[in-house]
C-alpha cells in the first residue's frame, strides 16, 4: 500500500529550479533512499516533505490526505517525523525532556495542554521507553547539550519516534559517526522498518545506505533521473554520469 505519494513536486529559489516536477511513491514499511550528488535537490525535497519549505507546484499525499504546504508542526502531529542532518537538540533541557517535547505533540493543540503536566510518572515512563529503544536510557537525566555527536544523532531519532510517526524522514543520520555507531544506528533503522515503520533516507554514505534501502530514487539538478531497487540503479548510466560527472568532462569544463 502506498503511504506517501509525491506528484510533480516543484520548488524554485530566485530563478533556480531546485526541484523540477519530481514524482515518486513510498510504500508502507519500506525504506526508500533519496540519493543524488550535492545540490541535486535532496534537501529541498526533504524540506518540502517535512513542511520546512512550501512547494511551488505539485502535490504531496500522505496516507490518502493532501498535505501539500502544511506547516511542520501539523505534519509532525499527522505522523511525519523528521531528523536534522546537523543535530538540533534542546541543549538546556535533559535528554528525557527532549523526548517529552515530542511526546506532547497531541496535546499542544488543545486546552488540555494547560491542565496536564509533563512532569508526571507516566510521561517519564513513556519517554524512557523510547530512549531505551535508541540506547540512550542511561543518559536520560543529562543535559542534552553535553552529549557527544553519536548520542545526539540517536536523540534525533528518539525525538522523531516520540511522535509515533508512520513515516520517518532521516536526513543523513550516519554523517560524522564512527563505524560501530553507524552499524548500531543502521540496525535500529532496519528494526524500525521490521516493525512496520516507513522510512525515507537521505544519505551520503553509500555503503551503509545501499545495504539498508529497499528502493532508491536518484535526483540530479532537481530532476528525478532514476528509480528502482538499489542494484538496478547502481548500474544506471545516468546515475553513474551524475555522480562521476562524465558530461562535465565531455563539455571540457
Amino acid at each position, binding site marked *: 500500500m502506498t503511504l506517501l505519494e509525491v506528484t510533480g513536486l516543484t520548488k524554485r529559489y530566485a530563478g533556480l529550479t531546485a526541484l523540477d516536477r519530481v514524482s515518486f511513491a513510498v510504500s508502507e514499511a519500506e525504506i526508500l533512499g533519496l540519493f543524488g550528488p550535492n545540490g541535486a535537490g535532496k534537501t529541498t525535497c526533504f524540506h518540502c516533505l517535512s513542511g520546512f519549505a512550501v512547494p511551488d507546484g505539485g502535490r504531496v499525499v500522505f496516507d490518502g490526505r493532501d498535505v501539500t504546504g502544511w506547516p511542520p508542526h501539523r505534519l509532525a502531529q499527522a505522523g511525519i517525523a523528521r531528523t536534522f542532518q546537523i543535530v538540533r537538540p534542546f541543549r*538546556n533541557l535533559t535528554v528525557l525532556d527532549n523526548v517529552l517535547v515530542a511526546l506532547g505533540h497531541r496535546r499542544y493543540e488543545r486546552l488540555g495542554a494547560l491542565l496536564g503536566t*509533563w512532569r508526571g510518572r507516566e510521561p517519564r515512563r513513556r519517554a524512557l521507553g523510547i530512549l531505551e529503544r535508541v540506547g540512550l536510557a542511561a543518559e536520560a537525566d543529562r543535559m542534552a547539550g553535553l552529549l557527544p555527536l553519536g548520542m545526539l544523532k540517536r536523540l534525533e531519532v528518539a525525538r522523531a519516534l516520540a511522535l509515533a510517526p508512520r513515516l520517518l524522514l532521516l536526513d543523513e543520520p550516519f554523517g560524522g559517526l564512527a563505524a560501530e555507531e553507524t552499524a548500531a544506528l543502521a540496525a535500529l533503522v532496519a528494526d524500525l522498518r521490521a516493525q512496520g515503520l516507513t522510512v525515507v533516507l537521505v544519505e551520503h554514505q553509500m555503503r551503509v545506505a545501499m545495504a539498508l534501502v529497499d528502493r532508491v530514487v536518484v535526483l540530479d539538478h532537481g530532476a528525478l533521473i532514476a528509480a528502482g531497487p538499489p542494484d538496478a540503479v547502481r548500474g544506471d548510466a545516468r546515475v553513474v554520469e551524475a555522480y562521476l560527472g562524465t558530461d562535465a568532462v565531455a563539455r571540457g569544463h
Partner: protein
Amino acid sequence: MYVYTVATLLGIYCILTLGLNTITGIAGQISLGHAAFLGIGAYTAAILTVRHAWDFWPALLAAVAVTAAAGALVGAAAIRVREDFLAITTMGVNFVVVAVFLYFPFFGGAFGIGGIPAPSWPGGSLGKPGLFLLVLAGVLLALGVNLWLLRSWVGLALLATREDEDAARAAGVNVRRFKIVAFTVGTALAGLAGSFYAHFLTFISPEDFGFAFSITILCMLVFGGIGTNRGAILGAGVLGVLPELFRPLADYRMLTYGAILLLMMRWAPHGLLGDESALWRALARRRGAP
C-alpha cells in the same frame, strides 16, 4: 509607612520581572519594551478610574485585558522576527507607546494623569499596608502563573521554542501560537503591575514608562538569574532596594544598572540564582549531599 512604600514598589518590580521572565526567560523571546506594557496597564486603570469613575477592581481587570491584547499583537509581530530584530522591534514599541502617551491629549500629554484614587476594598479604601498586601497577592499570583505554566505542557512547548524553534516545530509545537501565548501572559502580568503602579503613585506621566525602565527590568531579571522565578524575585528585590539603601546611588541608577548588566553578561551570565549559576549549583550540591 516608608517601609510599606518601598515594599510595595519592590512587589511591583517583582510582578514585572516575573512577567518578563515568562516572555524572555521561559519562551526565549527577547523584549526590550516591557515598561511600555506597564504603561498601557497604568494608563488604562488611570483613565477608567479618574475619568469614568470606574471602581478599582473592574478597572484592574480592564487594565490586564487591554495590556494582554497589546501584548498579543506584539507577539504576533514577533512571529516574523527573531532575536536581535525582535529586540529592536520591542524597543521600537516602547518608544511608540511613550510617544503616544506624550502627544495625544487624550492621555494627558507630558503632565500625565493625576488624582488616581486609592484602591478600594468592599467597605472602604485600602491604606498603605492594605495596598502592600494586595501587591503581595499579585506577586504570588504572578509566581503561580509561571509555576503553573512551567508544569503544564504549554510550558514545555515554550521551553522548546526558546531552545530551538525549528526543532520545536519538527516536534509538533506550533511555535507561532506559543510565542503569542508567552507575550500575552507576560504582558498581562505587566498590566496587573500597571494598575497597582497607577493607584500606588496616584499620578502617572509618560516618562515613567520609558526605554530606560525596560532596561532596568531586564537588568533585574538578568542579575537574579534569567529563566528562573527565584531569580526574577531576587533580582527585583536586590536591585530595587539598592537605590533606597544608598541614596547617592539613586542619581547614578542607570549607570549602575548598565555596569551590572555588563559585568553579569561577562562573568555570570546565569545571574545569581540561575540554574547554571555557581551559587545555585553549590546550593544544589549541598541539598543533594546532606
